[in-house]
């Protein structure tokens, strides 16, 4: 384990602890939803980190197609994997949040649907990589898919604004001022930073493991 990886790991742990303290100790009880709203401190940072992860996949994919640097390919692969994990957490926590607040575990409204679509798209990305034996070809094809997938996400995202939807309008990324109390925003931000650090740790570790894998099986 490199020292940078170790540092990231410790920082992530620290951040997660701080996040928990903020979520349960500092952030006030929400007026309409009650304490179930605290799930949001998991749910929203998870999807934002997923977007970050898939953005990294996009950039790494373009860099790989440009110069065929193996490092870029490994970064894309690792980032996609971690992104899928966080997307899964977002969907699952969203469902758990939805049951007491909307009365249903699942609804095919556009936002839930579009995040599930994104989940499946990147699962497909990982599947494509797994099914192509030639490492170089897998890298090339995954890069093309990574670019298409990432450019597709805003197209999928906009469908939420144009469809009848049960989900709230996006609190941080939607149009207009965010309808949230600063007390909540602070807790959200701390948890977001924690999740970004965790993403960094996981991705750095995964990239290193991918490189080691290549060396061992070379």
């Amino acid at each position: 384990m490199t020292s940078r990886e170790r540092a990231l790991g410790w920082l992530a742990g620290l951040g997660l602890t701080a996040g928990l303290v903020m979520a349960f100790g500092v952030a006030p009880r929400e007026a309409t939803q009650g304490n179930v709203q605290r799930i949001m401190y998991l749910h929203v940072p998870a999807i934002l980190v997923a977007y970050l992860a898939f953005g990294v996949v996009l950039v790494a994919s373009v860099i790989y197609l440009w110069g065929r640097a193996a490092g870029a390919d490994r970064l894309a692969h690792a980032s996609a994997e971690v992104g899928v994990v966080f997307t899964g957490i977002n969907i699952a926590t969203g469902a758990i949040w939805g049951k007491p607040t909307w009365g249903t575990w699942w609804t095919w409204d556009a936002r839930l649907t579009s995040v599930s679509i994104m989940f499946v798209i990147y699962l497909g990305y990982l599947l494509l990589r797994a099914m192509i034996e030639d490492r170089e070809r897998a890298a090339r094809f995954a890069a093309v898919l990574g670019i298409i997938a990432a450019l597709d996400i805003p197209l999928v995202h906009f469908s939420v604004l144009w469809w009848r939807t049960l989900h709230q309008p996006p609190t941080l990324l939607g149009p207009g001022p965010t309808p949230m109390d600063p007390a909540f925003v602070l807790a959200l931000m701390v948890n977001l930073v924690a999740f970004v650090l965790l993403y960094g740790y996981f991705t750095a570790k995964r990239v290193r493991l991918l490189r080691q894998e290549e060396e061992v099986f070379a």
Partner: protein
Amino acid sequence: MPDNWSFVLAAYGLAALVLGGYWRRLLRLERELVALERRRGAARDEPRPTPTSPGPPIPRR
């Protein structure tokens, strides 16, 4: 609205399980790779054993 702490617990528990599980998977992969590397390295470095040593003792009835 009632507080639904069980849902909050379920959500945080699930997230902990998933993130922890992924972390464990990474650690396990690391251990396996290190072991493989060590074995490969050892196999490369050691000279092959000579076939002059006596075999295992023949069991006596």
